[in-house]
């Protein structure tokens, strides 16, 4: 049997997905037996022009991590879609927009202003901002265009599967790779995890009645390690997040932040999480309810931590 041709690419992401891919450990040797890596900017020396020269659908599988923020990333997403038989959105950024997706609370102008003019460590007296083209004595220099709005991979090109997580757990990565190697692929569009139910299904903490009088941020309390974190007033997204990760965060007493994305059937993870959080507020008095809600400092960043570009509204309205 001919070896599988595998490509890996990164777009708007932090590099954590590459580490996660290596975390499959010695299974990587098994992968090397059956697959050749033809493109992987972080590890091997193949250039864009090498990919361009490949015939259509000549790559068997492409694991694409990162959201789409610039024209270069959009170009590469389209090119890798054309060259790959199976394109997989790998990780929370490619799937839902991820942390870079929170940039949709702003636009290019506001982001440039902050990053290149306002930050205390910036020394930019001429107020130079990135340009797509710039003339220098040696000729013209170009940069990719920085878009106003971050998109997911699935909003940019057609995708076949999703491997969720920030970053994906090694077991989730291997579950997908094993299915690929054995040729036992699930139906198109599947989000590949061990558990399609919520993270709570993986979580061993005791659950009783959810009645909350005050929400806490993680540094404000020492939670009881035996009891459900949401019941203790921590904004744990487990209730609105797909499982399969084995709930490592709640088990370390840190609330789930929702990186595996929504459970099946939910179209907007943030609104779903918001609904669950509001339902546990223990009060029938509008003023007290408002006081309890005032203790939730950043609703968008909490409820849409990894999924703002994939939400129904996609981005904030900038006046």
């Amino acid at each position: 049997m001919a070896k599988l041709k595998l490509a890996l690419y990164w777009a708007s992401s932090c590099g954590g997905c590459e580490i996660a891919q290596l975390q499959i450990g010695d299974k990587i040797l098994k992968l090397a037996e059956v697959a050749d890596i033809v493109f992987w900017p972080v590890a091997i020396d193949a250039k864009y022009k090498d990919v361009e020269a490949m015939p259509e659908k000549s790559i068997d599988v492409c694991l694409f991590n990162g959201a789409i923020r610039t024209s270069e990333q959009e170009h590469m997403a389209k090119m890798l879609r054309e060259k790959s038989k199976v394109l997989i959105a790998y990780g929370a950024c490619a799937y839902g927009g991820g942390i870079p997706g929170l940039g949709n609370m702003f636009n290019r102008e506001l982001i440039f202003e902050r990053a290149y003019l306002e930050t205390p460590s910036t020394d930019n007296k001429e107020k130079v901002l990135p340009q797509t083209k710039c003339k220098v004595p040696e000729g013209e220099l170009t940069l990719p265009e920085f878009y106003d709005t971050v998109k997911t991979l699935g909003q940019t090109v057609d995708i076949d599967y999703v491997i969720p997580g920030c970053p994906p757990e090694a077991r989730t990565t291997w579950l997908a790779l094993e299915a690929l190697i054995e040729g036992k692929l699930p139906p198109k569009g599947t989000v590949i995890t061990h558990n399609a139910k919520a993270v709570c299904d993986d979580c061993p903490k005791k659950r009783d009645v959810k009645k909350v009088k005050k929400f806490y941020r993680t540094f404000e309390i020492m939670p009881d390690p035996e009891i459900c974190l949401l019941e203790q007033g921590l904004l744990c997204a487990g209730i609105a997040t797909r499982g399969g990760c084995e709930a490592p965060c709640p088990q370390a007493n840190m609330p789930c932040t929702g990186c595996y994305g929504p459970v099946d059937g939910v179209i907007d993870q943030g609104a779903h999480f918001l609904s669950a959080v509001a339902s546990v507020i223990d009060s029938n008095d509008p003023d007290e309810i408002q006081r309890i809600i005032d203790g939730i400092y950043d609703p968008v960043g909490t409820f849409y931590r990894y999924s703002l570009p994939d939400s129904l509204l996609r981005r904030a309205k900038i006046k």
Partner: protein
Amino acid sequence: MNFEPKIVGFCCNWCSYRGADLAGTARMKCSPNVRIIRVMCSGRVEPTFVVKAFELGADGVLVLGCHAGDCHYSEGNYKTMRRMPLLKKMLAQMGIEEERVRLDWVSASEGDRFVSIVDDMTAKVRALGPFKNNSKEAKHG
């Protein structure tokens, strides 16, 4: 051309929808801008419904339920009372003006109250102008 806002109104079956019905049978004059969707209880109105209405082009969303203590299902409207303020806080962060989302209580006998809430909200949303739907705009570039 004058802007006429489109407002989606979720009315609970037992109080608010009956209140709207009373306003109609009593021939009370009322702004025609609210498109009513009857739900069994205001507690049925998931935050997703409200967000979806905006995504599909609504300029405002009105949620009406029974007065506190009057819920046909005992405490459905208390759930709404907890959800909507949190949703409003989040939508404000997303740049959606506060007046575009309103939660209020109308009983089956308060046809006049239904009319005054609808008229008041219509006027406020009309003054704000159309809600530009971001998701349709979110092209690259």
